[in-house]
């Protein structure tokens, strides 16, 4: 399937791409065909800085179970860390 289902958001942070570290400004989240992962469909994450060009990108393709586990792990770690600095 070709869902076109895509979410985009602004983010702050840094990512490490092919040319080293760079600042992140945007992210895309979509469920579609992977480029590399051996599944027919994956949850795809792109961490981007369009101001630096299309190659300023950190890409991740996860099967749906892995994506959900990652999402829960992120939430769990952030909740456990709340109040700490």
């Amino acid at each position, binding site marked *: *399937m*070709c*869902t*076109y*289902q*895509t*979410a*985009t958001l602004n983010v702050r942070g840094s990512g490490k791409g092919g040319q080293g570290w760079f600042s992140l400004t*945007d992210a*895309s989240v*979509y469920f*579609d*065909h992977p*480029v590399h992962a*051996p*599944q*027919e469909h994956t949850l795809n994450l*792109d961490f*981007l800085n*369009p101001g630096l*060009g*299309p*190659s300023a*990108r950190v*890409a991740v393709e996860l099967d749906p179970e892995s994506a959900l586990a990652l999402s829960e792990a992120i939430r769990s770690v952030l909740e456990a860390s709340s109040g700490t600095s």
Partner: protein
Amino acid sequence: MRDDIRAETVSISGHAGDQIEAYLAQPLDQGSYGGVVVIHHMPGFDEWIKEVTRKFAAHGYLAICPNLYSREAPGAIPDDAAAAVRAKGGVPDDRLVGDVEGAAAQLRSLAASNGKVGVIGYCSGGRQAFLAACSLPFDAAVVCYGAFIVGEPPEGGPMKVTPLGHLAPQLSSPLLGLFGAEDRFPSPEHVAELERILRAQDKDFEFHTYPGAGHAFFATDRPSHRPEAAKEGWAEIWEFFGRHLSS
């Protein structure tokens, strides 16, 4: 017929006169050939779509694939380009039509052209092939599992995709549609709805839906590849283009 070809990256005049990148493949034997505009899938101007373009040339067609992501990501690797274009909402329909028009004009300008040109598109390019065939004069059009020709696209998000069923009266050529029975976008219900629309307009079309195949069954570099469906689909394409694009 020999299958010797020449394939190269060229620059063509696209929408609004913009110079865009394209991949051109043509038979080496002197002769008069039909042309095929190949519209790439959403992953972009990648190795696979260039293989497809060369395949058309090896089968005796002048074939060209415009890089629809030329403007957003010149020189970028295909998956970075595809990600950049997706984040910006995809390829605007009017720009697509202009780029395909430029690609078709490039084919017709070649000395070996017999004047006939068809269009084929895969995945998002399937929808765009339908759009092009409803917007421009073609001699034949092939839609390979194009989603959202009919059916409601997802709400929200950056992707600007609208259904095209209302354009069916303007379809300029015979249409071949190749679909997977296991696909959800387009689903068999979407395909049936498009059939109803085309039949109501008395359009010349034929659809084939392959059991056991889902989306992107032609894509040899992906797990979605279904060799049997792809083999049968290619046979339909050769027969269809052979009938409509020969001298």
